[in-house]
């Protein structure tokens, strides 16, 4: 990881740098939006009261995070774009979230495994982002990591409970681990914009943390008496805007109101 350096004030005067920064930020922020939306779907549908409240709390944290990122993007764009435009008025290909976060809430096991795979990554990411050369991103990272550690504790605890629980819970959560494993590698995939921002010291180079990620995930899976899948073929595409078939449904649900009543407000 590069040491903290301040961004050259001229850095953002270059249109290309600015565009790369915006694309990079979308890749980060859209994960929070889509995962927040997915978790929001569970409001009132949790297996019992406590996880229901916890999942919606996590959803709220994600949506809070994403607002700060979108506000920053809107500020960088400097035109009339607002955070709401970014959240609600883009087309599918313009969303840069990873495939992992758009996977459906198949059952509670899937919800927990998806969350755990993301939380471990997210906490490492926010830890590394605290050394960004960009002042705003540093502030967001310091703020976000406090919440992210609560999330990781929640999903990790549940994963252990389900894996080391009954035969039924173990079988089902193992299935979720096997099915979602193929989406983990994309967390470390970088786009051209990402590479440019890593070069500039704005973005952390997550590839360097990949081994540590799999070590941490593997450790917890072992504690949970679950098998680590031996799958070497991974799916990617979301970060380039190529999403799975689930994405259209999420957006239809999420954007319905803004599309039907444009510019509607609370």
């Amino acid at each position: 990881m590069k040491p903290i350096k301040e961004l050259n004030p001229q850095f953002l005067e270059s249109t290309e740098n600015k565009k790369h920064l915006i694309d990079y930020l979308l890749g980060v922020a859209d994960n929070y939006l889509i995962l927040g939306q997915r978790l929001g779907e569970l409001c009132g549908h949790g297996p019992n009261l406590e996880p229901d409240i916890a999942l919606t709390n996590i959803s709220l944290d994600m949506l809070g995070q994403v607002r700060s990122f979108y506000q920053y993007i809107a500020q960088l764009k400097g035109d009339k774009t607002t955070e709401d435009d970014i959240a609600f008025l883009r087309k599918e290909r313009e969303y840069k979230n990873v495939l992992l976060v758009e996977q459906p809430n198949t059952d509670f096991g899937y919800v927990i495994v998806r969350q755990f795979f993301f939380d471990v990554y997210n906490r490492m990411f926010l830890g590394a982002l605290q050394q960004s050369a960009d002042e705003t991103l540093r502030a967001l990272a310091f703020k976000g990591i406090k919440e992210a550690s609560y999330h990781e504790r929640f999903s990790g605890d549940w994963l252990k409970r389900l894996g080391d629980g009954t035969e039924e819970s173990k079988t089902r959560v193992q299935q979720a681990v096997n099915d979602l494993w193929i989406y983990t590698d994309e967390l470390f995939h970088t786009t051209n914009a990402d590479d440019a921002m890593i070069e500039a010291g704005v973005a952390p180079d997550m590839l360097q943390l990949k081994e540590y990620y799999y070590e941490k995930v593997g450790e917890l899976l072992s504690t949970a008496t679950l098998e680590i899948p031996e799958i070497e073929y991974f799916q990617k595409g979301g970060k380039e805007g190529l999403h799975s078939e689930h994405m259209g449904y999420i957006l239809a649900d999420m954007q319905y109101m803004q599309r039907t009543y444009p510019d509607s407000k609370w």
Partner: protein
Amino acid sequence: MIQNYNIPQELLDILESVKDPEIPVLNVVDLGVIREVIVEGKEIIIKLTPTYSGCPAMDVIGDDLERAFAAHGYSVTTQLIMSPPWTTDWITERGRKALEEYGIAAPLEETADKDVLLNEKKLVKCTNCGSKNTKLVSQFGSTACKAMFQCEDCLEPFDYFKCLK
């Protein structure tokens, strides 16, 4: 963090009349979210630090501040300050008392908080009977900032304000 805002008592009174909408016994000064108040005649700029990033109370607090000051002829602009991030250490002593009286256990210091949430040590005092024989029911509670507890002596369920540092 006890802030000295360097503002006339009249303005401080207005400021303290604005409560956290989700914990109505706690005013915004005691909650520790007011970073700076800049007064220029009838124009006031208030700098706020959000508690949890998604906390819906922040928007309401902004509106409530504008309304409270408008009633006294001032116009308020609020600005969000992200750094340094808010911590539960900024809740004042008066604020902690108000929380306890309201039935919400005030945040413990960081190490004790971890002991409670991770190692299930019994350190949180029941807000009803004062016993420390309490257990964590869920790390997440009715709002982003709270966890759910239950007293094993008097059986009272209550909220605990999580330590955020």
